[in-house]
């Protein structure tokens, strides 16, 4: 499987943290990335994310995401330089202010996406949902909707691939090199995909109800998710990160 958010099993300290703590840590890194305004902090946060990734042995997902995000960041950079024209010109339309804002925007884009993905790759979705219900008192309905949505992403992408293969075998030119033409050809396929996904969602709802979904309460979960000493330490570190974001 080649999904970016596939769970990477492991036994590191990060894996054993309470899922809520992991969520808080990721949120803190993201918040600090938004608040911070110096290169040092932005780069340090990115480095921190990668160190955590290496420690949890879950760099594969991060690397494939970086490959996806770098072109986006570059587009962001070029756009910013085009819009912000104050400061001393460097060459062509690019000015110093534009370049600074642009590079920071590009770094932020990376800094926001990566921690969340890292957190998802080292947490079982079921654990995340159960912990949110137990610790954060999130109603189970929302937690279930969230995990089901994430679970359906690979299911639908497989379905889409199968549909494209079937259409290619009929002679539709999905193997065209022209991306615009490809998108034009893909649009009609939304109908079969929608039809099958509505059916699937309905079946899921029925199956869940037949397995006592409406009886579930906050105390139902067999696994418990207590906040331990380590979690508190990480939570304090998370707050420190946010404060650092304010200061720098």
């Amino acid at each position, binding site marked *: *499987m*080649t999904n970016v958010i596939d*769970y990477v099993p492991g036994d590191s300290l990060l894996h054993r943290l309470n899922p809520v703590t992991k969520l808080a840590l990721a949120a803190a890194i993201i918040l600090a990335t938004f608040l911070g305004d110096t290169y040092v902090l932005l780069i340090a946060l990115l480095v921190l994310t990668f160190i955590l990734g290496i420690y949890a042995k879950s760099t594969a997902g991060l690397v494939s995401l970086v490959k996806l995000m770098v072109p986006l960041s570059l587009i962001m950079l070029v756009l910013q330089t085009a819009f912000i024209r104050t400061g001393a010109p460097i060459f062509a339309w690019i000015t110093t202010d534009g370049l600074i804002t642009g590079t920071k925007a590009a770094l932020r884009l990376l800094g926001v996406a990566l921690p969340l993905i890292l957190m998802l790759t080292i947490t*079982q*979705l*079921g654990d995340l949902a159960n912990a949110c219900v137990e610790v954060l008192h999130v109603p189970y309905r929302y937690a*279930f909707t969230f*995990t*089901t949505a994430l*679970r359906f992403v*690979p*299911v639908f992408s497989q*379905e889409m691939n*199968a*549909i494209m*293969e*079937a*259409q*290619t*075998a*009929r*002679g*539709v*030119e*999905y*193997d065209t090199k022209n991306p615009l033409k490809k998108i034009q050809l893909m649009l*009609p*396929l939304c*109908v*079969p995909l929608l*039809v*099958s996904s509505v*059916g*699937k*969602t309905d*079946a*899921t*709802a*029925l*199956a*869940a*109800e*037949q*397995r*006592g*979904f*409406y*009886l*579930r309460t906050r105390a*139902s*979960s*067999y*696994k418990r998710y207590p906040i331990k000493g380590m979690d508190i330490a990480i939570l304090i570190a998370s707050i420190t990160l946010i404060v650092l974001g304010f200061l720098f």
Partner: protein
Amino acid sequence: MSSSNTIIKLDDVSFAYGHEAQNALDHVSLTIEKGEFVGVIGPSGAGKSTLAAVMSGAIPHHYTGQLFGTTLVDDRDTCEITLTDISRVVGSVLQDIDAQMVAPIVEDEMLFGLENFGIPHDQIEERISQTLTTVGISDLRHREIATLSGGQKQKVAIAAIIAMAPNVLVLDEPTAALDPASSTLVFDTLRQINREHGITVVVIEQKVALLSKYCSRVLVMADGKLAFDGEPHQVFAHASELRQMGVDSPRVARIANSLAEVGLLPSDQAPCLNVSEAHQLISSLLADATSKDAPADVPETSPHIPAVPRGVNQEPVVELTDVTFAYPHGGASVSNLNMCVYPGELVGIIGQNGAGKTTLTKLLNGLLHPASGTVRMAGMNTADVPTSAIAAKCATLFQNPDRQLCRDTVLDEVAFGLELHGVGTDEARQRARVAAERFGLPLDESPFSLSRGQRQMVALASVVVLDPQVVLLDEPTSGLDYRECMTVMETVSEMAERGCAVIMVCHDMEVVSDFAQRLVVMADGRILERGDANRIFDDDALMRAAYVEPPQVVALSKELARDVSPRFAGISQVSDLVDLVKEMLKHD
């Protein structure tokens, strides 16, 4: 009042979905006793799934429509208690198990129901480990569900329901996506929970051989009504009526019924349901005839198969030379494939799930390109031309028609392939009209509003209309009832007679033995053997190596050739076997 042994009781139940005038279920009355193993069979659209939904409480609680009559589950009316309360008694396994799964890990999947129903936490561990042992999947406990095979997933789905300790288990076509070996394993599991844990099993199933082997009672549905209800021997004694409804019977039952029709067996004789029963029956019938054995004739071949194989003197239309392919992320890789297919041939590809059969079809239609070796399709090297160009010569009929359909009306859908290959709109629509009318399809309706079987017919019509040189079929008969299955197979046989090469991947060995002239046997990504269908099915060692169970008639004639008379050797059709028995008895 029902007796204490009744667990489900339907009293004159009718149901119509939404505001439809036609009843999906029409005045059905039946009772299911505790501890029964009930199989439900019927053509598509007969109301089997609706019956399952009524028993599991999904009707009236989930699907809307008009319901009449009463359904009692454990003596309580399903209209008066909640779906959750019904599901404490009746656990149901859906047809689409991907939709049923709630968790990424097997253990969490098991926990979901137990947690919800408030099983005390100190009992949960024991429940899980016991259930996993019962179903035989203790080793899968910590696996990710996405990495499991189809058969393993089906067992996890069953285990997750069994863990909640229901009295009844209702399953909707649990083996539709499985190969014969995994299907048997699933039914072994069901038999075990039925016998050892006393759980009543109600299973909708199209595979008659499984039903007759495992079920204590068979219900036949047709047009929303209960057509037959009884012990398998009683039900399959009505093979000709069943056939008219679109329901298959085990081949050995057909032999017994044919013998009874020509007066060689008493007409009240119960039909045999498996090879050993048939063996006993025929050997006792022939006990006297064998002593004065007539010289062996050459056995007649199947009426479907032309006497002289076609096309052997022509150039092959498909040619694979040393083809090797591996998926980058794992999956069914294939290596050193060599095969030729000639115009007018019908070639079957058989083997277990994961043997590389689907990979082979994708290599043929150009969806995959070989890592080494060459695939030549209708004179083109698939590596050099775009897939869309190959599609003009080689049409594929997929297992799931829904992935093929994308237009608003049936007529547009059937014409679509022609238009893609450059045929003018008017001509394309004219040809599409002829093809669609041949299968009796409504031209102006949306393909998605049709039944599963009719959607497959739309897909079939869009293959036929292309008049291709090669047709690829990937599990063309799964999810179809017997009548639809025969329509598909007779259509492609006709195409073969007109010179089209047909290559089909198929799990149903009875269909394969009826229609395929040559077979390619695959296992672990390699071709084990190629050759004449009868010779291949006759090779026990090969069948075992490929995990394929030979068709009943072949197995039976082989046993009879060994124990009764060598004249039975090589017979693969019901009618030939019956004729031979008749002839041998006449000699006396």
